[in-house]
Every structure is written in structure tokens, then in C-alpha cells.
């Protein structure tokens, strides 16, 4: 399962998001907003970059 690019990407993003969420937020609301924001830019940013590479590599 780990050998899937997308699952690995999501897992990595989740771990990093949780790390910064725990490190920088004391309240549960701030923690979840932080996770959503970090996951958002990491997953969408990586997918956008991958698509850009595919697009420019044609």
C-alpha cells in the first residue's frame, strides 16, 4: 500500500501537518485548522507540480 505514490504523498503530508499542528497550536480548533491548511497546500501543491511536470514533459 505504501508503494502507491498518492498514498505516500498523503501520508507524508498528514505527518508533517500533524507535527506542526501539535507544535504550534494549543486548542483543538486551531490544531484542526492548521492540519487542513497544511494538508491543503501540500497535497494540492504536489499534485499541481506533478501535473505541471507531465504537461511540460509531453
Amino acid at each position: 500500500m505504501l508503494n502507491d505514490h498518492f498514498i505516500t504523498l498523503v501520508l507524508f503530508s498528514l505527518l508533517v501537518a500533524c507535527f506542526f499542528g501539535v507544535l504550534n497550536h494549543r486548542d483543538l480548533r486551531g490544531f484542526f485548522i492548521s492540519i487542513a491548511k497544511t494538508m491543503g497546500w501540500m497535497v494540492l501543491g504536489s499534485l499541481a507540480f506533478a501535473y505541471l511536470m507531465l504537461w511540460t514533459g509531453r
Partner: protein
Amino acid sequence: MAEPIPRWKAYALSLLTLLVPGLSHWFLGKRRRALLLFLIVAATFVVGIALKGALFSFGAPNWLYRLGAIAESGLGLPYLVGILASIAKLDPAESASLMFGYGNVFLVTSGLMNMLLIMDAFDIAVGRKD
């Protein structure tokens, strides 16, 4: 915010994270945070090993691997044990595998996370952060 402690003690306390990730936070009284941070850093490390990432040594053949060694050495004791016991040793044949790069990213990130934990623990110890 907790009462600040002497600087030498703050340095000593923050470096405890090099033994076990999150140990400094534990001794600073942030026990729940310490446990969560330990689980996150440990999970990142284990996934990196499972994905066949390498623990780079400082004598690695190219500068990119040596940079990786600097980042991974942030793990402290787990890195040292891994290097001495030749766990996840750099295998040139493995470097062509698809997951090698991903594994390295996880391992390097776990080392960098631990470095951030040391700095965070220091900030808590000197009273800059709660």
C-alpha cells in the same frame, strides 16, 4: 507561561530530545504534547525505513547524501544506533528503486523534525513559549 530556568539547564533539557524524540517536552511538563510528537517523529522514521530509505553516513559518496546525513543526524541516538548497527545502510543497487527517494524524504524529515523539537523545547525552557 512556566517559570524560566537557567540557560545551561535549558540547553541540557532541550538536548534530551536527541535521546528520544519528545523527551525534553516530557520533562518540561508538556507530557501529552511529548507523546504526540514522539509518535509523529517515530512514525515518520519507521515509514522511511519501511520504504527502504537509507541512513546516510558523513562519508557518503556524494554531497547530496552527506547533506542527508546532516539532516538525519538530527535524530540523535536512533540515527547513531542505525549507523552503528548498519540498519538501512545505503545500498547503491537500491538507489534505482522507485521508493528509495520517498523513504529518504521521510527519514530526512524525521531528523529535521527532531531538530525543530530541540529548538522548541529550548524556547519553552527559557520561557519564550508555553
